[in-house]
Structure formats: structure tokens, C-alpha cells
């Protein structure tokens, strides 16, 4: 099963949940790999003791124009919805603005003179991280100042799938725009990690609207639950949304987390919570398989 761990609001505990759940599943002897899809600011590697493995470069199409073949017809500029090609026939001038290019390849279809040559820009990388020589964590990291992390996080998911483990956990990026969509779309179940604050609840509702539009299955985990989760629980109940876990707030957790440590290694109470969560996930999977 593929599980995405997501949240609308940042900093609610996605990486905390995904790394601890992942480590617990490993301890239980389950076959599982982790894809860190938060390619703008990936962090799961910090919490997992792994050796560096292979690096996979991610490239995106960027056109370059062969001016010997170009007839200045301007069709490529017309095809480009991102205004990344400027063509001024009167001045015999044509140029590509690579920062605006989204790599859609429309220009190559536009050109009848074969004047658009394929170039490839390095937009990021996926690092495979290994335990005992076997890669089980795939961390997406987009290059700074790149517009879209999507091709990079997709590569991480692709590599995680190629590992052919029984389970994949995907640590999703925050927000509910395209990087988020391009992660949860692969998941059989999305776990939304939220916190019971006005910001947390508002962002959760936005995220749920997107997941419903995508027709994705999801359940909720309330982190820092003892801040007072009544309003949030009432909302979940009214909407018929499954609450899979409540994790209490504790300075111990914050402190361990700040050092890049896995909480399940040190805190029996929290470990218990994650064990209950895992049981519910497995139960969820079984009931889904029967259907």
C-alpha cells in the first residue's frame, strides 16, 4: 500500500509521523520504503541513520534554437504559453528565457524546420539512502531557484516504486497546490497530519477539499492533540472522516525532534501511539482488500 503523509499547514508533524511510522514498520519486519517528496526542503534523511547511496539527477527539457535552421516564423513563440520564447523577425532576433520555460516541449511540435534542439537543465536530484547496503529511503531535492519541484518528487516516487516493497510511505510537501497534488495522486491512503489550532483547522479543510476533488481516500492524525481538539474532532465527526491517531504535545518530543532523533526509540508512550496507528493502517488495508 502507498501511504502519503500530508498536511495543508507546514510544521504540523508530517516528517515526524512519516519517519517514525517508517522506522516502526521496519522494526516490525514489514517491507517498506520511504520517499521524501518535500523536495523544496527535504528533511527525512536527518532522522534516519542511513549511508549515502546512488544519486539520480533529474533533468527537464529546455529548448535551444539553431539559428542556422530557424526561419523566424515565430510559431514556437506562439505555442509557448509561458512566454519563454521571444521572437522579433524584424530584428532577426530569437531567444529562449530558461527561467520561464516549464519544459512542456510545445515548441518542438511548433517548429517545422527542425530548428529547436533538445537541451536538458539539471533541476534537482534524488538521493537513495541505504541501510545495510539496501536503498530504502529516496530523498527528492530540487535545485534552489527552480520553479517547480514536481519532476524531482515524481522521480523519488518512481524510484520508491521500483524498489518493489510492499509499502511505500511518501512524505508530502505542505500546502495543497501542485507539488502536494502530484504526491497524493499516487497514494492509496493519505494521512493528514494536523494540529488543533485555528490555522491547522482552516488548512485541513482546504486540503480535504482537494483530496475530495481528486477522489482520494484519507484519514486524519491530530498532532499536539492536547492543545484542545474538540472543535476539530466535531468537524471530523460531522464530515465522517476517520481519526486515526491523536498524538499529545510534549516538550520531550520537541527536544528529541530538534536533535534529529526518532521519538519511538525513546518514548514508550509515543511508541504505543504509533503502534496503534500502524494497527489501524493494517486494518484499513485489510478491509480495503476485502472490498
Amino acid at each position, binding site marked *: 500500500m502507498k501511504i502519503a503523509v500530508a498536511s495543508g499547514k507546514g510544521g504540523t508533524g508530517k516528517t515526524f509521523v512519516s519517519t517514525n511510522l517508517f522506522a516502526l514498520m521496519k522494526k516490525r519486519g514489514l517491507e517498506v520504503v520511504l520517499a521524501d517528496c518535500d523536495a*523544496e526542503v527535504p528533511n527525512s534523511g536527518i532522522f534516519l541513520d542511513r549511508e549515502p547511496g546512488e544519486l539520480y539527477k533529474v533533468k527537464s527539457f529546455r529548448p535551444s534554437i539553431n539559428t542556422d535552421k530557424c526561419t523566424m516564423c515565430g510559431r514556437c513563440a506562439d505555442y509557448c504559453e509561458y512566454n519563454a520564447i521571444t521572437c522579433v523577425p524584424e530584428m532577426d532576433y530569437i531567444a529562449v528565457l530558461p527561467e520561464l520555460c516549464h519544459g512542456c516541449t510545445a515548441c518542438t511540435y511548433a517548429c517545422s524546420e527542425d530548428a529547436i534542439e533538445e537541451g536538458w537543465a539539471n533541476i534537482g536530484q534524488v538521493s537513495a539512502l541505504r541501510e545495510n547496503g539496501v536503498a530504502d529511503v529516496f530523498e527528492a531535492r530540487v535545485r534552489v531557484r527552480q520553479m517547480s519541484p514536481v519532476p524531482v518528487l515524481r522521480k523519488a516516487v518512481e524510484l520508491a516504486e521500483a524498489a518493489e516493497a510492499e509499502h511505500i510511505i511518501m512524505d508530502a510537501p505542505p500546502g495543497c497546490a501542485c507539488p502536494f497534488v502530484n504526491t497524493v495522486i499516487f497514494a492509496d491512503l493519505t494521512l493528514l497530519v494536523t494540529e488543533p489550532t485555528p490555522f491547522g483547522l482552516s488548512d485541513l479543510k482546504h486540503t480535504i477539499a482537494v483530496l475530495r476533488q481528486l477522489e482520494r481516500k484519507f484519514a486524519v492524525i491530530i498532532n499536539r492533540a492536547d492543545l484542545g481538539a474538540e472543535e476539530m474532532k466535531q468537524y471530523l465527526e460531522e464530515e465522517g472522516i476517520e481519526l486515526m491517531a491523536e498524538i499529545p504535545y510534549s516538550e520531550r518530543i520537541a527536544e528529541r525532534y530538534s*536533535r534529529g532523533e526518532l521519538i519511538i526509540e525513546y518514548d514508550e508512550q509515543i511508541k504505543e501511539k504509533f503502534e496503534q496507528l500502524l494497527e489501524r493502517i493494517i486494518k484499513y488495508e485489510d478491509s480495503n482488500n476485502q472490498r
Partner: protein
Amino acid sequence: MKTAIISGKGGSGKSTVSAAFIALAGDVVAVDCDVDASNLPLLFKHEVLASESFASGHVVNTLAEKCVGCGRCAEACVYHAIEMSEGKAVVNPLLCEGCGLCEKICPSEALRLESEAGSIIYESHFDYGDLIHGDLKPGDDNSGLMIARLRKIADKKMAEKGATMQILDGPPGIGCPVISTITGADKVIIVCEPTLSGVSDLKRAYQAAISFCVDISVIINKADINTANRNDVRTFCSDMRLPILAELPFDRVMVESQINRLDIISYAPESECAYRLREAYKKII
């Protein structure tokens, strides 16, 4: 002066710091640039004065009766947004980036690129001045473009009212919406927390910001939760010559203020956090 507040890592306290600075500024044009999860309107009672619909992108609509099922569009789409289902092209609008390639190569004119409205931009009035905010249509892309529009409205307001301070509350991450938030800002403040992830994200946010703005400073939130990491942040800031405007102690009063829907300056004016934010604000003006 335009001050953008960003963080790299989500949940570091961007909105809390922004809200405090807004309260301190008094007469301000505030912009909530986190358009897919905007939070300032939840914190401040406001009255919407005007709203406009915003076409945040393009989407492709299919005319099934014209589709001949050749599959060229699905093959060409680099975003994997088109699937062939029962011999017809089906576009997933959430994956579609609106490049329009499919429309151009379709032999039977079965696909049409159309601009998509559905996002809304608001101009509101609140106790501290003007609040410009928006709701990006869920799942839409192009929040960068929408932020650019919010900022244009904010600049106009600023000129009209003669306000001197504009505060931009940024989105998390370091990608296109963040770049759109900090482009042309006079100051960028990075809020970070001294966790290993926080330190790593501060460095990424700094790299992203430095090519767009030279005046960058840092606020360390929850500064006392990890001394070693806090010292790493201090060292990084001193190496990069980034002033640290404030180190805020870890205090539940910060989250309580949010639960009570107030900025920290109004909720707990005597708290250490409020004191340090007041001192920080004096440094930026």
C-alpha cells in the same frame, strides 16, 4: 518599506511574527502571500471591501464527441495529465499545467485551452490598516502569479494611503510562490527554529532569497529548545553576515495567542516574546 517574512520550513512561526509586526506597525498594508493556506484573515477581524475573481491558470476542456481517440495528446503531455479511457482523451485538471500543447496537436480540435477562474482575491480593512489576501482555488497551480497580483493591489493601496509599511506573510518552502513573495521586497526576514530540519531549511531559504534581496535578517523562534542547533544558527548568520533580529524563547503563550485569535502583542503584551518582537521591530524600521 516592504518586508517579507519567510521560513523554508513550515510552522516555524512566520504568521505569528507577521501578525506581531502588523500590530506594531499600526498603519500597514498587510499581504497574506500563503494563498493556498492563508492565515492572517483568521487572526484579524476584517471587513471585505472588494473582491475580484482571478484566473490562476489555464485548463484544458475536452469535447468527447470530437475526440477520435488517436492518443497523440496523451503521448505528448509531459505532465502525464491525459489518459485515454474507452478510446477518449480524459484530462485530469489537477495535473494539467495549461501549456496547451494538446490543443495545438489535436487533429480533430477536441481539446480546448481555457482560462480558469475560481480563485478569489480580497481587499479588506482591519484595525491595523489594509489586508490583501486570497483563496487559491484548491489544487490549482500558479500561486506565484496570484501573489504577484496581490502585491500589485497592495502597492496601489500603499501609494493611495501613504502607508509606509507593507508586510508580506510568505508561504513555506523555497519555490515559485516564495520567489514571487520576495521579489522586489526591501527586506526579507527568515524565521527559523533551532531543530536540525529548521537549520537545514534556513540555509535553503537563504540561498533562495539572496539572489532576490540583499537585506536579509533572521528571527530564531523557540530559540531555547536546542542550544547546539541555536549556536549553529548563530554561526551561520555571523558567517553570512545576517543580523539576528530576535531570539524568541519557547513559550506556549505563542500558540495560545493563535487559539484566542489574537496577535501576541495584543494577547500577551508583557510576555518575553512580545518584548523581543518589539525590540526586533525597532531594528527594522
